[in-house]
């Protein structure tokens, strides 16, 4: 049964919001999976809290609409308990890079087999426009009306330093490529990280800026760590520079979930072993 992939929930993103592109892209990917005969019952979407996270209400698949900053540990728990499911996280940049940054680094370190999509609009959308860790220096948001005093960090560099095994950057106005990057991330066995430059129409509309700077990382050798670093550093989310889109780095490594094989015990076996341990301690 081909299901309707969109729920009846009213969509409340602003006109022009990049989240529409992400939703559409995911919908297409899911539809594709279904066409290939995969059951969407085995897919779980995990979101944080923020504009991006509303996608949990809109996509008609299993979802866990978690807390601000906490997609990754929830996704990790799901994957550990049931390694057969495909777990996709949609997180915000406030979510993933501020409130819950530590989890992101540990997900990379562990190489847990989940796909992390960061809707990086470089602003807190839902709380009406404060700077995030990827906002440029001097960003005037509601919490920094005189401009921020911090440089942004570069999430791709952080992921490279943390051992992530799939690192990509997409852009909501390059949808075919975005779909390709996410699809490949889902297929990738291990932690797949995709930073998506997402247009926020209301609080930080970078469309013009991005349009003239983005280019496709065609021909880049994704197995070369050094080159990946160089490409990641080319644009630092602050200075003017060409902005590469595509897969920066990919490699194969055993996953965290693989290292915790399921071990089933029948209720009787369980009771017997408890009893044995009681006896051994007497």
């Amino acid at each position, binding site marked *: 049964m081909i*299901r309707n992939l969109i*729920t009846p*929930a009213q969509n409340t993103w602003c006109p022009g919001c990049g989240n529409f592109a992400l939703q559409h892209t995911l919908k297409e990917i899911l539809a594709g999976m279904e066409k290939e005969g995969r*059951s969407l*019952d*085995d*897919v*779980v979407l*995990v979101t944080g*809290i923020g504009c991006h996270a*509303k996608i*949990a*209400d809109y996509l*008609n*698949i*299993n*979802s*866990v*609409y*978690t*807390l601000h900053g*906490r997609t990754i*540990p*929830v*996704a*990790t*728990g*799901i*994957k*550990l*308990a*049931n390694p*057969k*499911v495909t777990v996709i996280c949609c997180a915000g940049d406030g979510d993933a890079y501020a409130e819950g940054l*530590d*989890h992101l680094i*540990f997900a990379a370190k562990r190489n847990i087999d989940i796909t992390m999509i960061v809707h990086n609009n470089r602003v807190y959308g839902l709380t009406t426009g404060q700077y995030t860790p990827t906002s440029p220096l001097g960003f005037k948001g509601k919490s920094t009306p005189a401009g921020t005093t911090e440089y942004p960090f570069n999430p791709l560099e952080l992921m490279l330093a943390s051992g992530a095994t799939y690192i990509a950057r997409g852009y909501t106005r390059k949808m075919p490529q975005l779909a390709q990057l996410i699809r490949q991330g889902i297929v990738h066995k291990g932690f797949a990280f995709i930073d998506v430059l997402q247009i926020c129409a209301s609080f930080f509309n970078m469309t013009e800026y991005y349009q003239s700077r983005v280019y496709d990382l065609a021909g880049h050798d994704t197995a070369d760590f050094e080159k990946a670093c160089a490409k990641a550093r080319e644009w630092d989310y602050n200075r003017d520079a060409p902005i590469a889109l595509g897969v920066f780095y990919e490699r194969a490594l055993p996953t965290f979930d693989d290292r*915790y094989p399921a*071990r*089933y*015990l029948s*209720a009787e076996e*369980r*009771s017997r*072993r*408890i*009893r044995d*341990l*009681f*006896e051994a*301690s*007497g």
Partner: protein
Amino acid sequence: MKEVSVLVGGKAGDGINNAGAMVAQLFNHLGYFVYIYTDYPSLIRGGHNFALVRAADEPVGAYNDRIDYLVALNQETLDLHLPHCPDCTVVANADLVKSIKSGQTVSINTILKAESAPPITGNSVMIGAFAKAAGIPWEIVGDVFRRHMPKAADENIRVARRAYDEGLTTRPIPAIAGPPHTLLSGNEAIGLGLVAGGLSAYISYPMTPSSTLLHFLAGNAERFGLKVIHPENEIAVILMALGSAVAGARTAVGTSGGGFCLMTEGLSFAGMAEIPIVIVVSQRTGPSTGLPTYTGQAELRFVLHAGQGEFPRLVVAPADAGEAYTWSAAVMHLAWKYQIPAFVLADKTLSEGTYSVDYDRLTGLPVADPVLWDGQAPYRRYRDTPAGISPLAFPGRMDAVVKMNSYAHDEDGITTEDAALVTLMTKKRQKKEAQLKEELIRYPCVSVRGTLGATTALLCWGSVRNACDEVAARLGLRVIQPVVFSPFPDQQFSAACRGVQHLIAVEENATGQLAALAREHGVSADATVLKYDGRPFTPDELGRRVQEVIAP
């Protein structure tokens, strides 16, 4: 009560805990019930550690002021403890103590050299010497070594034997009729109870006094088919655990107060999203970092009210290893039936104390079954039902779109801001609580003990109950111990208090948290007996203080 107490003391790193455990096993195999209390500062080597083993012909769960044997690995042990037990029989390490007035000494160094045994076997020397002083038959000693120190048993037996042979029996302890029991620490009992309740994943970040539960389950992961994970911090712990539960795995976490602080946001998420989770909180002396290795009972109110907003939660505080085992299993089952967060609230005394447990005589509690989805599409994760319990399905289940949500949501799990729907869903969660409260009537939520008809009663909770039991036995009092705190067992509690004219709350905190809670539920204590220095009440001390308030 026939009883005997042994204090084994030395410096951190001397293996005092192990020595205490071995002494306890000797008594266990002599037919006694035993209890071990360990006292150690928060450091790795050098500070003063001691283990107190109390053995008796009836179950005990507290140590007392009187000490019969003092096994001293160093001078500090003598300096600190001998003044409090001038009549005790001393067995001391000749290498590190100055001359002793009475008792016997044995040189660990000499014996280890003679047997060319490594330093780690030093405490076995002391065990051998003690066993001889206490006149414990060698067969029992050898047996206990083989059974309970299987790694390098031979080496330890050799040094113990030599000390045994060199020593004299000065104060023999008679064997009594009775089988050996299982000796379990509170944390081991909690762990086994969780396993009995179907545990399949345990997630925890180390924090005293919960860490030994992590170590125990990690060490037995293979045996019980568990995934045991130690993540980056407590926030990750609770959220990973919730993810695991969302996917259908019975999951528990463990921590102490400071770590629990970091879990409160996840707790409220579990309440709203209706995710079953068991949270073990083992209390230590607070506030803040406090005294990491000492006990306290100052987090009852925190656990009852933690997390923003209101949602049903189950809170259970067992008093000893037996209760810890049976209730941990019940808590897991009930968490899953009601899809709520559920607590096992322990304290350092319980978690790290060791108790005699008789598996066959544990009071079995009912097993609550979860309500599973019958497969009739469409699946609605938060379907409202008469009892408020929505049938469970997990992601991966055919034809079920499972949507969980931390926002206010409708029955499908979609976010809503509709006032009527918000009210409805809050009522749905309240119905679960009402139903749970109803179901708990069949459980022993309030334990009434001692002289049941006495009009003077001790009101207590958690591990303090054990000292209260002894005081009550001596003074002919009633003991009222709520085991379940949320939902509060009003009916059983007022029944327990019927006829009481003088109610004395006994707690290891500075404000009388249970006394305040009782007041909220219509019962006023006439006096409080409080202690908050991290050391548990001894029955002797508690007896004195209770007598002061009974007849001032």
